[in-house]
């Protein structure tokens, strides 16, 4: 079992929903990134590292700004890989790279080289917000070969056929998007989240994590009740950006994850 499946397995055993944290690579700056990540991982079960991108069209303002900031500070794909390596030296928890497709496409050596490098750096999986599985016919086999889990997304708008297609292409877990919309902390989430989780679980044995919009206990709790994982990103970034109490937030989420 890979680290990702293992993490979900352990959470389930502990009657918890897994806490999946997102942090933009190199945010708030290269030096503090590792500290923030390690601090978050004291409470979180998995970490998504975002490859900063110039045109993050699936992201709301919080993550957009964090990307702009770190790019302006000189973040690159190579440096993101380095940060993953350094994290891997400090933790055995699952690390995933969340990236738009163009940085993979443009990588020297292409998809194969990118995935190889990612694996070498110590990552366990990749999340691809703008690459639906039907556009990934070359990437998926390469990822399988490198044993990098491929996490694709299902959405409230997904039809049964799409659910079938997407869940089949996933390894590690399935990422269910809570809202039609972009990333960003929200005060409340739509009513139909449980339905999407149910529909997904009905056709797949993989764990299902729900993300987009989780901002604290109140939004995390109802998700934790139905899903195998809760993804939190913008709320963490915002807390760091505003020098808020990061520890309090991660503890709050972890608490919400308990059933």
């Amino acid at each position: 079992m890979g680290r990702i499946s293992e993490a979900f397995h352990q959470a389930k055993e502990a009657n918890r929903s897994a806490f999946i944290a997102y942090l933009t690579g190199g945010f708030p700056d290269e030096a503090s990134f590792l500290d923030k990540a390690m601090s978050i991982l004291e409470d979180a079960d998995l970490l998504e590292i975002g490859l900063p991108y110039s045109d993050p069209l699936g992201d709301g303002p919080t993550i957009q700004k964090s990307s702009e900031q770190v790019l302006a500070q000189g973040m690159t794909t190579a440096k993101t890989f380095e940060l993953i390596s350094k994290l891997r030296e400090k933790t055995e928890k699952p690390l995933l790279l969340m990236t738009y497709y163009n940085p993979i496409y443009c990588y020297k050596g292409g998809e194969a080289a990118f995935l190889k490098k990612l694996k070498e750096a110590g990552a366990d999986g990749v999340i691809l917000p703008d690459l639906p599985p039907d556009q990934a016919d070359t990437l998926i086999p390469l990822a399988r070969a490198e044993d990098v889990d491929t996490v694709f997304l299902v959405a409230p708008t997904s039809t049964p056929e799409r659910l079938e297609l997407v869940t089949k292409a996933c390894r590690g877990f399935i990422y269910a998007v809570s809202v039609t919309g972009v990333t960003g902390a929200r005060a409340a989430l739509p009513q139909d989240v449980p339905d999407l989780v149910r529909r997904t679980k009905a056709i797949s044995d993989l764990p299902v994590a729900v993300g987009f919009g989780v901002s604290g206990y109140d939004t995390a709790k109802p998700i934790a009740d139905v899903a195998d994982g809760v993804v939190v990103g913008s709320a963490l970034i915002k807390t760091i950006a505003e020098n808020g109490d990061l520890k309090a937030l991660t503890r709050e989420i972890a608490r919400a994850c308990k059933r």
Partner: protein
Amino acid sequence: MLFPQPNEKGRFGIYGGRYVPETLIPALDELAKAYSEIALSDDFQAEFHHYLKTYVGRPSLLYYAENLSKYCGGAKIYFKREDLNHTGAHKINNAIGQALLAKKMGKKRFIAETGAGQHGVASATAAALFGLHCTVYMGEEDVRRQALNVYRMKLLGATVSPVSSGTKTLKDATNEAIRDWVTNVRDTFYIIGSVIGPHPYPMMTRDFQSVIGFETMKQLELAEGRSVPDAVVACVGGGSNAIGIFAPYAYLPENERPKLIGVEAAGHGLETGAHSASISAGKRGVLHGSLMYLMSNDDGQISPAHSVSAGLDYPGVGPEHSFYADERMANYVAVKDEEALLGFKKLSEIEGIIPALESSHAVHYVMQLAPTMRKDQVIVVNLSGRGDKDVTEAMRVMSLMEANNGKN
């Protein structure tokens, strides 16, 4: 389907595809289905062409530019006068087409991105005509450069939403429109303004714009006794006006095909990096949902584009153009800001026609091309829009240029 491309997967060769969040995929499927079932029907086509005729004012003129032809001293130059369309550019053809389809699909709200503001005006116009509301995303830098069009959109009842992220131009406006669409996908129709975006957009926009090329064929047959000229020249931003006039010629057998020449914006010069010449100086990549020629760095970060014309100021180019380029079905060249301004001035002075700065790139190129050709040869230039929206900015830039020249 009108043309052999895209293939059943929505790709032109390797280009195109659907690189978008999963949330949008069902909407794209729905759209593709509606497009083939509704929009390709005879009824829809009749209604679409009715609006083109009675509202847009089509067919647009094919104008023999006698003064300019004599001045250049070579081939006969014709202009396809999309600038005479209602709202002043080719963009309206596509906006009407997409809006009509949206209406048939029961959509309640439009969104659009815009650079020069022409597509925004066209979308706002179509929205007014069909009684729906339209929100137009526009980069803050373009809001400044194209103030006239901002006013026009507001008057037409649209909401103009300035975008301050990234380079504050068309690319970022498109990101923002996609974000809106992802959020409101269930009742919102996204009217994309060029032959870009995920399938079926590049195909759909191409088909709606191909009226330009089909009319040209008929009109040239009347004027010159042959429907195929020796060369066709059009400016290329995302590429919709160019595809509109190229497509009907592009799939002719190679020996019957005219030279098709797409003119990209070389901005301050290809060597400076400050340009928008995705084919001439870019490489393959993915932006706004499709694989295409693109300006990005080694890490795949999109490079900021530059052009004096807001409508060409875009770092990508439609997948079908990318395909034409690889297959050598068309050639792509690039014209600099200051050269485009020369074209802008010359056509104004010599023919009394003020072209859009976008189209001025094609005008400048044809002035170089025509003298190298024989007097019995014929070139058609797609005059994609009128320059009213640009005169203030052009005057500003030209006087800056003069001031700088004075210094050297």
